């Protein structure tokens, strides 16, 4: 039977396609809608948090840190409640990672503070003796690209109906506001000021006073939101 195909490149290619596409169709399609449903209480990231998430991605933090707590006692004791599918509903892309050179960060917002992150990102060994993580001093100097963060939030709202500017939990209040680019920038700066108040770095203070948001502040906003 196969020798017939071995003389006909087109049909050979077609048969190959049937063989390789089969698994994907059966694996991926059936549960697609179900898996993207958010858990009760899951909300989209604020624009500032989303900006921090983009920095997390640019620096490839996910090369060494997972965001997936497996249902084992040794993991829930260490990192908190195991992960649920619906908690990731607004994660585009997902950031589970595949390697824990450093610890899991799925719920890092529950047990680390702004102050801790500030010291840690500047000199990891100062808070974790023996740490092999690189220092990220440049995050204290560059200012956040809020335009792209807003563009992403706006895009997912338009294209994927991510519930920005909506009442998600039914208390007649907007849960995660987006608004126009100018509104979002203004609001993010206010949020950033709250975080910067708890930080000691002079450069951060200067940038905030100039109306810029240092990358480190956005990143900390994102890390604090991971709960």
């Amino acid at each position, binding site marked *: 039977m196969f020798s017939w195909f*071995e003389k006909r490149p087109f049909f050979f290619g077609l048969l190959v396609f049937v063989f390789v596409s089969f698994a994907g169709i059966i694996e991926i399609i059936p549960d697609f809608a179900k898996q*993207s449903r958010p858990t009760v209480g899951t909300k989209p990231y604020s624009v500032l948090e989303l900006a921090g998430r983009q920095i997390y991605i640019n620096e490839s933090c996910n090369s060494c840190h997972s965001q997936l707590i497996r249902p084992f006692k040794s993991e829930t004791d260490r990192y908190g409640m195991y992960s649920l599918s619906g908690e990731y509903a607004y994660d585009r892309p997902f950031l589970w990672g595949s390697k824990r050179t450093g610890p899991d960060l799925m719920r890092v917002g529950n047990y680390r503070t702004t102050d801790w992150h500030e010291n840690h990102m500047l000199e990891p060994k100062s808070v974790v003796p023996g740490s092999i993580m690189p220092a990220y001093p440049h995050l204290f100097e560059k200012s956040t690209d809020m335009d792209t963060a807003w563009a992403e939030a706006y895009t997912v709202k338009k294209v994927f109906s991510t519930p920005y500017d909506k009442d998600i939990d039914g208390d007649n209040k907007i849960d995660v506001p987006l608004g126009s680019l100018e509104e979002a920038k203004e609001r993010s700066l206010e949020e950033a000021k709250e975080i910067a108040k708890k930080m000691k770095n002079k450069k951060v203070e200067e940038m905030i006073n100039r109306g810029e948001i240092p990358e480190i502040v956005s990143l900390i906003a994102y890390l604090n939101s991971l709960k």
Partner: protein
Amino acid sequence: MEKSRRIDYDYSISKLFTITTILFGILGMSIGVILAFQLAFPSLNNIAGEYGTFSRLRPLHTNAVIFGFALSGIFAAWYYIGQRVLKVSLNESPFLKKVGYLHFILYVITIILAVVTLLMGITTSKEYAELEWPLDILVVIWWVLWGVSIFGLMGIRREKVLYISIWYFIATFIAVAMLYLFNNLEVPTALISGEGSWIHSVSFYSGTNDALVQWWYGHNAVAFVFTTPIIAMIYYFLPKESGQNVYSYKLSILAFWGLLFVYLWAGGHHLIYSTVPDWIQTMGSVMSIILILPSWGSAINMLLTMKGQWEQLQTNTLIKFMVLASTFYMLSTIEGPIQAIKSVNAIAHFTDWIPGHVHDGVLGWVGFMIMAAVLHMTPRMFKRELYSKSILETQFWLQTMGIIMYFSSMWIAGITQGMMWRAYDEYGSLVYSFIDTVIVLKPYYTIRAIGGLLYLTGFLLFAYNIYKTIRVGRVLDKEPVNKTPIYQ
């Protein structure tokens, strides 16, 4: 064959890809060695400011070796093998030759842009699919060009029956096209909103779905870049170099169609104990075990091809490379299924055992096979004898030692860390803080880095040997039939 006139094959495109496989190989492997030393000696992270951190360099390493080194080697082999087994020369079709050149040029531009953007931190974060959308479009264009080359050459072939290597090239082309397209579906944010960076995009899928699509891609990109085209190469080069017929045609059919059918399922084993449905995890686990059959089918078919001719291991260094490649293929295709067993995965996942597994596959199987292919092709393309047997022998043993140091240290590191993460004391509390489980790995990270350095050194010797072959190798007046001539 006696009736047909001698065909004058055109190797110009194959030569170009041979050069890039060596250059990108040096680039990707050097970054790999830097990364390995950074884990052992973290102060090395600060050598180049934000551009030198482990996290920035890691995607660059994987992309440079997968899409730079391995793909170049695969394309070099295609533009060499394709003509020879289809019995048609690229000289007969100026169109296909132009397609080949365009393929090469766009490919090199893509890789260079990939290096630049990844260093700048422009990434989608999805493993082995980090490139942003403009680069994805470039990739699609040259992938289609490669498809035109494959099917175009088949369209004008003289040999009607497609040889086994061609099956594997077709499978590579089709499967990677499908996987790449679906996994890289993304929406450019500037296009929708009119604001922000034009190169930024957001994934078409979210959360668990994104993970599922990504690992369906991630695992099978490995299959169809690191497995099928490499099998295509060994099915041509081993019989050719040894002068032996392929052991069994039936076994090749079973292994080929079996591999295609089963491999795509195995992506689920990257998601065991995650939030994807249990049945997908279980399917991933079970199918990974079944995958041993077609994988070992190919490997055994290759080893049995050497039946009765084992003395060639002593007399022909290239045979040694290919037999070792085949053996490492067997090792990594038994190791992978073991890691896919749920209870083993609970310990192995997220640890260094995983990069350990990947590297005995890529260093042992992919790396050795591509180098053997280049060593076989270069004398025939440039009509010169290989420059030095002693350099080649030195390279072989340096690299073999390097691989052994690499995977044995990573086995120990991975299992040690996996066991420490789950260790409880008699009062029911965790024994080790996370940093304890990092500090304990330092000696293994050091051994791994030295192993990597040995492999890189071997690769540099290889590059030197090929360079000298092309420049000063003894000129061959006629093409060698089987054993590749080498200066003793």
